[in-house]
Structures are given as C-alpha cells and as structure tokens.
C-alpha cells in the first residue's frame, strides 16, 4: 500500500496540474502546509477497485480567477452559482483524470461533486473517514488550494 500511496500522490499531483493548466490557465506550485482561509470545499467520492474521496479546499482569490479564466468573465460577472458550478467541475475533472491515469484498464464510478461553504478545517468534514489519507497544498499568484484524498480497499 505504501508503494501505491506514492503512486497515488504523484498521479494526483500531475492530474491537478493538468486540470488547472488546461482548463483554468492557472499554474500551481506545491507548498509546505500553510494556514489560510478557504472559502469553499468541494468533494467527490469514487468506488471501484479502490474506494475513496477527494476534497478540494479553495481560497476565494483562486476560485475567482478560475471562474474568470474558464468563462472569460470580468471580476464583477462572477456569480456564486457559476463559482460553485466551476469548482465542482474542476474536482470532477481532477478525480476522473487521476483515476484513469492511475489505472485506465479499471472502471471507477464517480459520485456527483458536493459543494460546501467554509466552516470546516482542511482534514475535517468530507475526508474524516477510515483509509489512507494524503494532504497536499498548492499556491498560485491568485490564491491557495488544499487537497485531501482518502483511499481505502473495497470491502
């Protein structure tokens, strides 16, 4: 499982970079764990040969830029509905990209992404369940992203 966790970490990071660069024109850099206030948490579950959940913690600055870049909008045109939609889609893409990069010969089922507003700390809430957990932090010029991924073997 340790060896797999390393593969999971590398594959997940590559998937995150690919989604942010291709769809949002945002270039992230991994950073050491930092303290910051996230505005929105979006989580998605997957089941298959490996079960798990990926939760993404977005700062307001980052989510603003993501919506603006994806939809070519000005700052004042970003609505909460569009923000939620855009962040859900990003987590959906990260999860799908991660799973097919991890093993494209296997079929995984993805849940619909769930969006929560701030209030919980990273590591609490969506990922507080049994399994191997991975916490990653990223920064861009516009804000911060935290990723929590928990995986477990199917029962």
């Amino acid at each position, binding site marked *: 499982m340790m060896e797999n966790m390393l593969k999971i970490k590398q594959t997940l990071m590559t998937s995150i970079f690919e989604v942010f660069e291709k769809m949002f024109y945002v270039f992230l850099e991994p950073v050491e764990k930092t303290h910051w206030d996230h505005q929105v948490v979006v989580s998605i579950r997957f089941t298959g040969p490996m079960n798990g959940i990926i939760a993404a913690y977005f700062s307001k600055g980052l989510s603003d830029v993501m919506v603006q870049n*994806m939809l070519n909008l000005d700052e004042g045109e970003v609505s909460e509905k569009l923000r939620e939609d855009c962040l859900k889609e990003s987590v959906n893409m990260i999860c799908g990209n991660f799973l*097919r990069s991890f093993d494209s*010969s296997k079929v995984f089922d993805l849940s619909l992404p769930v969006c929560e507003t701030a209030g919980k700390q990273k590591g609490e809430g969506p990922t507080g369940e049994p399994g191997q957990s991975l916490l990653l932090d990223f920064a861009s010029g516009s804000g911060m992203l935290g990723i929590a991924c928990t995986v477990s073997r199917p029962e």
Partner: protein
Amino acid sequence: MSFNVLIVDDSNAMRAVIKKIISMSGFKMDKCLDAENGREALDTLAHEWVDVIISDINMPVMNGLELLARLKKDDLYREIPVIMISTEGSEERMREALDGGALGFIKKPFLPEELRRKLYEIIGVSNDGEYAENKTNADDLDF
C-alpha cells in the same frame, strides 16, 4: 452553412466553455441548444433539429451512455453524430461509448483544439464555415 448544436452537460460552466470554444473556432452555429441531462436532451430533440450532439457521461437523471443508447435505437435520431466529452476515460467506458455509436470521445480536461479538431472531422467544415474538401457531397446523402 450553419449548424444546430446540442450540448448536454449538468455543469453550466462546462456548457458555456464548450459553446465558447465552438463560437471561437469559427463554426457557424445557427442554434446552440443545451440540456442538463439525457432526459432534457431527448425533450429538446422532440421539437428541435440538431446536427451534432456533444454530451457528458456522468449526469443525474439520465447519463450520457443511456442517452446514446436511446438515440441509436431511434430511427429519427440514430444518424445524429455524437461526441462524448467526459472525465470518465477508462478504456472500458471509452469502448462502451464508441461501440455504442459515439463518433468521438474527448477526455476532460481538454484543450480547445481537441474539440475543434473533432468537430472539424465530424461536421466537415473549415474554420471559416466553408465546406472542407472531403465533406460528404449532398448528393451522396441518403434521405
């Protein structure tokens, strides 16, 4: 010549992105219709002419593969080209979609160029809206 496109995705943001890519690629769209799931897409098809469908797979109510199966069973809709755009990119899912009659499968995240190229292959028009040289001749179409 302009086309009617139906974009099926439960994400407003993704529908807007796809629409923007098509517009900016120079394809002449007459109508760009959209639907949040397969069921809504079928409702739209009941009263709108559509030349090409671009559909997600993972959607509530009716997913993209169910929609594809329903289209291929229907004499009226089976010839409409369908492009699947999805995060679900396992070999089995892709095979399922292509065997089910989809003409293309684009994995999210994707570059605008990937969609433009696939549309060009399927619709057969160049960026400025003119017929490509290899476009099917109207006389060859079997009505």
